[in-house]
């Protein structure tokens, strides 16, 4: 009798398995294109439930989401000026400083734009006032002044030189010498800056203080030209090249008939 019951159960289970599988496949397909699920860890921070996804190497948060509540709610948001909105980053960093592991004074505004009633605000992280290459902290603010989540690429424990041993002109010459046919191509220096350049290794990060140069051949300046440029980073301590990369052109559309080449300060640098 018991054996019969057992076989009946097995029969029943084997009948419903294909249906269950189909349901599972259907449910998983719904995930495509849907909102990002809370991935990574969840933790309670000052009584607030948060979802955090961390950078595997630095352990700094890449994403923080409020699960039951927003990260920040701005009072009288509709009355805030653009300038006040650009000050929301330091507020956010102050509130979540132990998680973000950087201070509010380390932010430098990258951009703030309002698109369809939503503000999009982003910053670079700085080290001793110098921008860290590819670092970011940004978020959107909805029309009610709510910040629900943030995205970040932060470097919590930067150890980098604070002065340069190689002078600028020397570094520029080294940078120019990296480009084959620099003179023939009539290359122009379109952007330059001192940056902290983090190079990720297996279990650590090397931080270089670099002279960052963006060079473009004269021909590339026309938006219709398919010619690109180069990013060259020279170590301020040794004068050695630490990055050489072909650059795609960032392009605003379209080309007006009275187009004139942009001035260097109008070009968007790669950092």
């Amino acid at each position, binding site marked *: 009798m018991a054996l019969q019951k057992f076989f009946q159960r097995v029969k029943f289970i084997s009948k419903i398995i294909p249906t269950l599988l189909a349901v599972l496949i259907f449910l998983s397909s719904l995930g495509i294109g849907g909102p990002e699920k809370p991935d990574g860890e969840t933790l309670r921070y000052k009584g607030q439930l948060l979802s955090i*996804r961390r950078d595997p190497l630095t352990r700094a948060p890449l994403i923080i989401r409020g699960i039951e509540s927003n990260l920040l709610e701005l009072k009288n948001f509709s009355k805030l000026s653009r300038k006040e909105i650009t000050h929301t980053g330091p507020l956010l960093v102050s509130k979540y400083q132990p998680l973000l592991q950087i201070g509010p004074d380390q932010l430098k505004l990258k951009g703030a734009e309002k698109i369809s009633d939503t503000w999009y605000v982003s910053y670079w992280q700085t080290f001793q006032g110098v921008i860290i290459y590819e670092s970011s902290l940004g978020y959107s603010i909805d029309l009610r002044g709510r910040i629900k989540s943030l995205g970040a*690429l932060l470097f919590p424990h930067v150890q980098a030189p604070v002065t340069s041993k190689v002078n600028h002109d020397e570094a520029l010459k080294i940078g120019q010498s990296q480009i084959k046919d620099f003179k023939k191509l009539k290359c122009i220096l379109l952007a330059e800056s001192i940056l902290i350049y983090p190079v990720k290794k297996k279990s650590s990060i090397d931080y270089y203080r670099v002279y960052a140069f963006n060079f473009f051949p004269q021909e590339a300046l026309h938006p219709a030209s398919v010619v690109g440029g180069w990013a060259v980073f020279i170590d301020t301590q040794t004068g050695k090249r630490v990055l050489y990369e072909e650059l795609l052109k960032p392009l605003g559309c379209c080309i007006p008939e009275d187009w004139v080449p942009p001035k260097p300060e109008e070009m968007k640098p790669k950092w």
Partner: protein
Amino acid sequence: MVCACKEKTEKSSLPKLGTAAIDFNFQDLRGQTWSLDKVRGKVVLLRFWADWCPYCRYEMPVIDKYYRKLNKEGFLVLAVNVKQSAEVALAFTAQLDITFPVPLDPDGKIARRYGVYAIPTNFLIDRQGVIREILIGEVFREEAVLRDLLKDYFKFERRGEEK
């Protein structure tokens, strides 16, 4: 329509309008593998971008708005990040609350195959896998441009709303 660089595009190796989109396999930020052949039947906006390009940044919310609206009707956005790390791309998509798939092209191989020389560059691929539009440079900050582009493929009831 090839926007921006009509006169000189013949110099680049951009694919020609009306030809089949080049297939490729890639992984997105969620680890999902995509292939253009596998999404045949959908209208695909294949987009190349990087986070340091400000023109790329502020188009994203507009594109995402239409992706959320039309995804169930077969509109797919594949926004290929060019030559950056997964962490950079992930932080960026979280900042803008983007929901569409973001494939990674860390060495720029896919961008080269598509002849991309400036960012953003967008390719609109129809349900048969044929390239119908190439748009170079920032064009979608004005929502109407994207809406007009999609109106041949999706029904819109009123301005900004799909049927």
